[in-house]
């Protein structure tokens, strides 16, 4: 059994009256490439934003490497308008029901097992770290619409991502007492740029690169933050078939080279079917299918969701 990397449990994200992600459950194991697909507006990016801390979920729990990183339950006004499932699962009201014929000892054992799984399981504990804290735990992402730092060079874009790993404080950094660390970081960035084949443009402005290279740079920047789990939000958006093929090879290559687990959102089915170990399919916020690429390809619900069902059918 491989090690569990990311686990999303009962995550619901509701904006006002709109349920964007509805009771999502998914699991990613170490070393896997897992894709999340679905029609436009299915809630894929919202799910990403919940995992990376951009949004605080309305309900549910996210754990990373066996530790709970995000946890919430409907609060305040949301208590009344909450439309999702399990509104009390992550509050103090959650109790273990005695199974028929179960003794006290067995129940206590189950309680212990639950506590093992989540130390705050019987409380209303809320965990909502900011995105930077989650990144520091070992998760890095790219964005659907490229978000590079526009006034910075390619080299600096990657170097800045190393900032979250610096140990020097603002005084030692200002007065250059961290010279060793800085030099080591620059060395690493130079090596990283060589691996992603951007070392020839490292002094160019990030925005002056062609589109495909900007995508590559964004991945390189995420890699610089030294993640264990890499989240790619539509990495092939706007790419032509040849660029997409290159990207497919590239993702496989970095997964092996950096010992990564990859979680990606993508619309290019060729890419998804090519590299994914497993696929999850979202539609209107709900998980409608999961499985290997072959299973997904032949799943009638997935085909319906993507192509639509004829009215007279």
């Amino acid at each position, binding site marked *: 059994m491989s090690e569990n990397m990311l686990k999303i449990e009962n995550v619901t994200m509701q904006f006002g009256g709109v349920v964007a992600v509805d009771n999502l459950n998914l699991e990613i194991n170490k070393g896997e490439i897992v894709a999340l697909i679905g029609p436009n507006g299915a809630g894929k990016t919202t799910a990403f934003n919940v995992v990376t801390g951009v949004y605080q979920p309305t309900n549910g729990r996210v754990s990373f490497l066996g530790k709970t990183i995000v946890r919430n339950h409907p609060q305040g006004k949301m208590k009344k308008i909450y439309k999702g499932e399990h509104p009390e699962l992550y509050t103090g009201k959650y109790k273990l029901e005695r199974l028929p014929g179960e003794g006290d000892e067995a129940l206590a054992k189950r309680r212990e097992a639950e506590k093992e799984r989540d130390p705050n399981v019987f409380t209303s504990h809320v965990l909502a770290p900011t995105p930077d804290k989650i990144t*520091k735990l070992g998760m890095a992402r790219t964005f659907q619409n490229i978000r590079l730092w526009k006034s*910075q060079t390619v080299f600096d874009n990657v*170097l800045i991502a190393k*900032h*979250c790993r610096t140990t020097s404080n603002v005084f030692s*950094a200002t007065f*250059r007492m961290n010279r060793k660390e800085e030099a080591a970081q620059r060395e690493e960035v130079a090596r990283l740029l060589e691996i992603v084949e951007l070392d020839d443009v490292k002094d160019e402005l990030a925005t002056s690169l062609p589109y495909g290279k900007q995508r590559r740079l964004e991945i390189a920047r995420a890699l610089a933050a030294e993640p264990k789990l890499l989240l790619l939000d539509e990495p092939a958006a706007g790419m032509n078939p040849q660029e997409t093929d290159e990207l497919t090879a590239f993702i496989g290559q970095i997964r092996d080279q950096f010992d990564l687990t990859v979680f990606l959102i993508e619309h290019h089915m060729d890419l998804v079917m090519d590299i994914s170990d497993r696929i999850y399919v979202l539609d209107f916020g709900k998980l409608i299918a999961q499985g290997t690429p072959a299973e997904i390809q032949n799943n009638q619900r997935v085909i319906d969701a993507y192509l639509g069902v004829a009215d007279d059918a």
Partner: protein
Amino acid sequence: MMKTKNNSAKTLLMGLVVIAVLAVLSVGAEAIANSASSLSIMLAVLKKATVYALLAVSMNLLNGFTGLFSLGQAGFMLVGAYTYAILTIPAAKRAGVYQYYDGGVVKFSIPEVFSGVLGESIGPVVGMVLTLVICGLLAAFFGWLIGLPVLRLKSDYLAIATLGFAEIMRTFIQFEGFAPLTNGSNTLRQYTTFKHLYPYVIVVGICILILVLLINSTYGRAFKAIRDDEIAAEAMGINLAKHKMMSFVISSFFAGVGGGLMAMYMSSVQAKGFTSAMTYEILLMVVIGGIGSISGSIIASFLFIGCSEWWLRFLDDPANNIGGLSLLAPGFRMVVFSVFIMIVVLFFRRGLMGDKEFPDLFRRGKRQKKGAAGK
């Protein structure tokens, strides 16, 4: 491989050399200014511009490098100026300055204390520099205090909130209850000041050098990332709250030091003078010099002060009117000056320097030459 090498040690050394050279030049400039009475204004202009250079750079750290549009500069300067004045009035002169408040509550003067310990020659200087540091620390403390609630705000809202802070500080200091400390709405005067130009240049030079080093450090790069794209910065592990606060506090520190120097230059301070117009002047320097360019801010502050105080003076003198025109009159220089500013903004959309630094100008030239040679 040029950029992958970290040449920060060189920056530090270069900076110190530049400061030393400027200090020597300022001694020369002072001698020239004292040689003719018509040039006496030059000394005042240079002093004022030097102080404004620090203020503009400290504002640029916030507005230009971290992307926080703050207009609280005058408030932090006020804190610095008052701290400096209160702590350096000689004990013997306090009765005269605080004439309505029994000589005030502070009965000592830091430069005097130090001259008692370290001797008459270096004691006062050490005391004055130390007081400037205290000015900065106190302003930084206020920056931290204001930053806690205010830094959650974005762009214009942040500007309004910080502007409000500056106005509150101004009223607060004039409050009668604090009068034994701040002398209420009366002026503070007769405190110890730097007599010559070069100490200003050295203090400001060192402060700006520290800011340059900060901006080129990993923290400075993080500030720029926040300016360019906050969401991406946060996603790449930069703690927004912490870094914004850091930038705000550091900027207030140097605004406080600048305020202390301002008090020295003016040789009397009154809270009434630290209006929001002062902040706008500094903002104008930052914009004219180029948002995100330190050398731009420095150049702009010298041009700005030079124009507004010195080179355009002749426009104010009715005696200079030619041919019966009565165009030139007191205040006319400000009209011409405003036109100047408009022209600069029209032709240099991103300020005189854009986001380039002075050495970049030569560097780009070099690269072009290399490219041409390659062809």
